[in-house]
């Protein structure tokens, strides 16, 4: 099992969710986060003065999937969440040691 963590632009959430559902992903977790990458945010002007907006709102999607699905999920998120503008985000994946469904006690791939 792989834990895929993607940081994306918030307005892409619906598109990403629909694409993952189409792939057969059964669930995911979404968190509102703020962050920046290489471009380090942007500037705004307030009453004639520039100020830096360093941390931009993003969404973090956490999804755990079977190994076979992991590469497809990463490719799908990449394609759907891309706008071509700076700030599109990043995807990371980690191996998962154990997974358990709390309601039934199932573990392993059946818990996903």
């Amino acid at each position, binding site marked *: 099992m792989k834990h895929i963590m993607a940081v994306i*632009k*918030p*307005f892409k959430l*619906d598109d990403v969710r629909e694409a993952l559902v189409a792939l057969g992903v059964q669930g995911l977790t979404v968190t*509102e986060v*703020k962050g920046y990458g290489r471009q380090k945010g942007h500037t*705004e*002007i*307030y009453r004639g003065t520039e100020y830096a*907006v360093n*941390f931009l*709102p993003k969404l973090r999607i956490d999804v755990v999937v079977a190994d076979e699905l992991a590469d497809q999920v990463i490719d799908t998120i990449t394609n759907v969440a891309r*706008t071509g503008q700076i700030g599109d985000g990043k995807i990371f994946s980690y191996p998962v040691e154990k997974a358990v469904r709390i309601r039934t006690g199932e573990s392993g791939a059946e818990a996903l």
Partner: protein
Amino acid sequence: MTRSNFLSTAGLAGLAVAAAALPALAQDAGAAATTVPADSAYVFNTFSFLVTGFLVMWMAAGFAMLEAGMVRTKNVAMQCTKNIALYSIAGLMFWVIGYNLMYDGVDGGYLGTFTPKAIPAPGSDTGDYAAASDWFFQMVFCATAASIVSGTLAERIRLWPFLIFTAVLCGVIYPIQGAWQWGGGWLSEAGFSDFAGSTIVHSTGGWAALTGAVILGSRAGKYGSGGIVNPMPGSSMPLATLGTFILWLGWFGFNGGSQLALGSVEDASSIARIFVNTNLAAAAGVVAALILTQVVYGKVDLTMALNGALAGLVSITAEPLMPDPIWAIMIGGIGGAIVVFAVPLLDRLRIDDVVGAIPVHLLAGIWGTIAVPLTNDGTSFATQLLGIAAIGLFVSVVSGVLWLAMKATIGIRVSAEEEFDGLDKSELGMEAYPEFGQGTQRV
């Protein structure tokens, strides 16, 4: 100076003038008993225009707060910007061409002149009231019509195209249809009656808003496939409520000032009656909405109650003088009921009206105008329908052409990403609440 001191001083001054003028008025002794001398009438008429005029100006604050409360936080600063901008554009355009296009030399025709309004130099005014006071009073009505459009089109329209539309609405569209009636044009000669503007102000704004909403399209995510409607709750119920109360207060000026005179006992008495009917209609609109939402949805809906008040006010605006209290209550109550059923109906038609301005101003405006012959014998349903149709057609067509022209050239809608991030960020680079939610000053 206390109010009673002021009135008794004014009264004494009036009596002094009256005593000096008595010999000249001797043959009109009967009529003189119910009017004040010409100078005092001038002062009172001007006073009425100015005070009721600034009450209607205050309605601009009401619209701003109502709309700010009904949009999501990411669009609040934009909504406030639109409101202060449109009030200002109305103030300028109605001087540059609006007033004279509406009032100067219409004479039973279709238009006035394309010239700025001349404001007399101090000390050179003639007539029954100060010319500037009439300009001011009429200008704030034009601004009211413009503010109706901004609520409907919120959360996805670009700022400058909206302001361009506002400039044309205030300088050309509103004045021309207003000339037909209040300017002494062909509609008034036909016998159409619209005391304070259910059609001329409210339906006009409503038609412009409706055509805009259809051409602009609904907000992203508002309507799903299979008839799904996704509510997008407003950011501040207190602001929306405050805005409604402010509008209610301003409406006493809107309807009361439309008596267009305060220089006689009859005028004063009429304005008092207008205040009573205005309040009764608004109250009935609220109660109708409260009862209907409780019965139909199982819970009272505050935003419907607020819309109900406004719909009641719009409904009575066409004829706030003639009804007796029972009629005022019925007219306002029906306005409130119209809103409760029209808001979901618009959603079923997939017309996205963020604040309910189309039910409140267009539909209740039509109802109020049709209802006039119920209490005013000098009018007929046929001429009322004629006015509604003529003005509706004119405003819709011209507005539609303008919206389409801008859509095809400069574009009227923000991009999907800009709409999602909010107009505050994309159009203004500002935040309404920088320290809350995802605001930049929070982290």
